[in-house]
């Protein structure tokens, strides 16, 4: 009997195919929007997590200045190389320490030039930032000590200066410094903040200080904590040590900041998740509007078909049959809308993911949920018009013009 009712509903929908389509358009758009938002949001979150993992989740960053948020400082005194040495010596849970100074510099090779980030540091930097060398070699101890004019370049810089091939053992110029390319970095892609991590030239810190910045400052220290050691413990150890080295009294605030990548990761994924939830909520409102659209059209449909309902009641349809007919019609309509929406969302989020360069992750849960929700909308918003149809008096209905 239910199957027959569905059959009747499908016939009724087919009889009014254009109107049926326009009716469910709200549901289609709502379902498609919610699923796309959730899918893209999920992809973005996963991407942020992957990028942070690639940066090394056990990384700490020591930056001068009060805590103002990532990348900002309030102009406190920079560090010295001796600070990095002290941390390496005194804190046991640290496996790698990289003092880092960097500056935007134009790199020149032949008639090609490209403004890039020149970073002065040591070999530990590669370990801390989870980078590896694709060709060539790291710095030697003597090169680091003497501040030799040698550099390791990122993939973007190599492409800009040398085109598709080569680069190794060439000489490039960074301001007044002419240096040999001794290594090529493995490509890392975009960072979670949207920065190109391959747009980099790494040179020995002493070379950077002498030939590029012209001072002995270290603008930040990046550290790697042992896998099984607690980052919280390392953080507080470093804090105590640095307070001592920077001669801060008990009443002074820190004039430096130890940042944990886990914190940054949490903050970033938190932001994406919040945005996803917000956008999905907005999209869900359109689902509600779609439901009201269905109720509206079902009411119109009942009014239009009063005579038909009269005929049905006269030839033996029960109140229940008519109720079910219109209810099933509403549910079939909204479910069809849900299905179309799912198809649209699958295609839409696939292309949007490509466009926004986030991974496309098919999420069966949200698809099933959206389908059930669209069916539920049919039941909720179809019930009132259906009951109205079922309660018609057959005599009045048959006389209705």
């Amino acid at each position, binding site marked *: 009997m239910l199957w027959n009712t569905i059959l009747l509903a499908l*016939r009724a929908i087919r009889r009014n195919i254009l109107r049926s389509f326009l009716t469910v358009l709200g549901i289609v758009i709502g379902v498609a929007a919610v699923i796309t938002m959730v899918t893209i949001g999920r992809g973005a979150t996963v991407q942020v997590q992957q990028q942070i993992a690639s940066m090394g989740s056990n990384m700490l960053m020591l930056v001068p200045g009060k805590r103002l948020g990532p990348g900002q400082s309030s102009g406190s005194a920079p560090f010295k190389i001796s600070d990095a040495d002290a941390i390496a010596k005194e804190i046991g849970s640290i496996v790698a320490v990289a003092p880092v100074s960097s500056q935007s510099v134009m790199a020149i090779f032949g008639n090609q030039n490209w403004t890039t980030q020149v970073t002065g540091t040591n070999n530990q930097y590669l370990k801390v930032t989870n980078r590896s060398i694709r060709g060539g070699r790291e710095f030697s101890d003597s090169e680091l000590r003497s501040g030799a004019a040698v550099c390791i370049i990122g993939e973007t810089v190599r492409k800009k200066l040398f085109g598709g091939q080569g680069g190794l053992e060439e000489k490039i110029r960074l301001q007044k410094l002419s240096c040999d390319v001794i290594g090529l970095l493995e490509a890392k892609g975009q960072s979670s903040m949207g920065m190109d991590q391959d747009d980099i030239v790494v040179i020995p810190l002493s070379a950077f200080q002498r030939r590029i910045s012209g001072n002995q400052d270290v603008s930040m220290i990046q550290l790697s904590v042992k896998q099984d050691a607690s980052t919280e413990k390392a953080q507080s150890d470093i804090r105590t040590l640095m307070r001592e080295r920077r001669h801060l009294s008990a009443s002074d605030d820190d004039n430096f900041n130890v940042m944990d990548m886990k914190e940054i990761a949490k903050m970033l994924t938190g932001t994406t998740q919040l945005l996803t939830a917000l956008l999905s909520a907005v999209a869900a409102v359109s689902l509600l509007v779609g439901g009201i659209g269905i109720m509206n059209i079902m009411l119109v449909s009942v009014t239009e078909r009063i005579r038909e309902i009269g005929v049905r*009641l006269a030839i033996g349809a029960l*109140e229940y049959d008519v109720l079910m007919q219109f209810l099933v019609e509403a549910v079939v309509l909204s479910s069809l809308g849900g299905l179309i929406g799912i198809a649209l969302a699958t295609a839409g989020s696939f292309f949007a993911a490509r466009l926004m360069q986030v991974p496309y992750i098919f999420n069966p849960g949200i698809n099933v949920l959206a389908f059930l929700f669209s069916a539920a909308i049919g039941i909720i918003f179809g019930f009132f018009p259906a009951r109205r149809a079922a309660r018609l008096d057959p*005599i009045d209905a048959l006389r209705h013009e």
Partner: protein
Amino acid sequence: MNTGRRLIEFKGVRKVYGKGTASMQALRGVDLAIDEGEFVAIMGPSGSGKSTSMNILGCLDTPTSGLYSFKGVDVGKLDRTQRALLRRYYQGFVFQGFNLLNRTSALENVELPLIYRGTQARQRREQALNALETVGLKGWESHTPGELSGGQQQRVAIARAIVTKPAVLLADEPTGNLDTARSREIMELLNTLNSTDGITIIMITHEPDMAAYAKRVIHFRDGLVETDKQNGRAD
């Protein structure tokens, strides 16, 4: 074809619309008996009570007082659902305005009452095709009402009414919207259904010409039966 078995009985049936001073007596105590196999035409001016009688006969309405028994069952004691079931299994309706479903093929229209009966798809199709053949519409199954003439539409409606092999066919001015030639065709068809298939027919009509096809003519006036003639030609 009168088998002599009592199908319908009215005993002192009254129908009052409204309450108090504004009330209107549509039926003032009608006594009537119709046997299986009869072909009855009901006539009378508007307001005479013939439509009210038809609604009560079709279980769409109930008498205010008096007894209406259908196949020996007191219809006044049935609730809305039971009356709907009675219509479903024992009665067929034909309306003046045809009342077919638009944009729905003749076959699907005829199948409709069988769907409510829960008949299996194949059997349903077979019975609907038979009914269409009976009314002379073989080959028109896939046409929608919009593609059919008025006479053909009324034939589809008759097919829909007889497809369930009802005990009685109730026709409310079946020829009201048709020209004389089409009207005569429909009346011939009803006549055949009555004499060949033995279907009891009760029909309301304004036109004496159409009433002439019936075997019995009942005249209503002011909520009462005025005349009740067997085989009579109307005046």
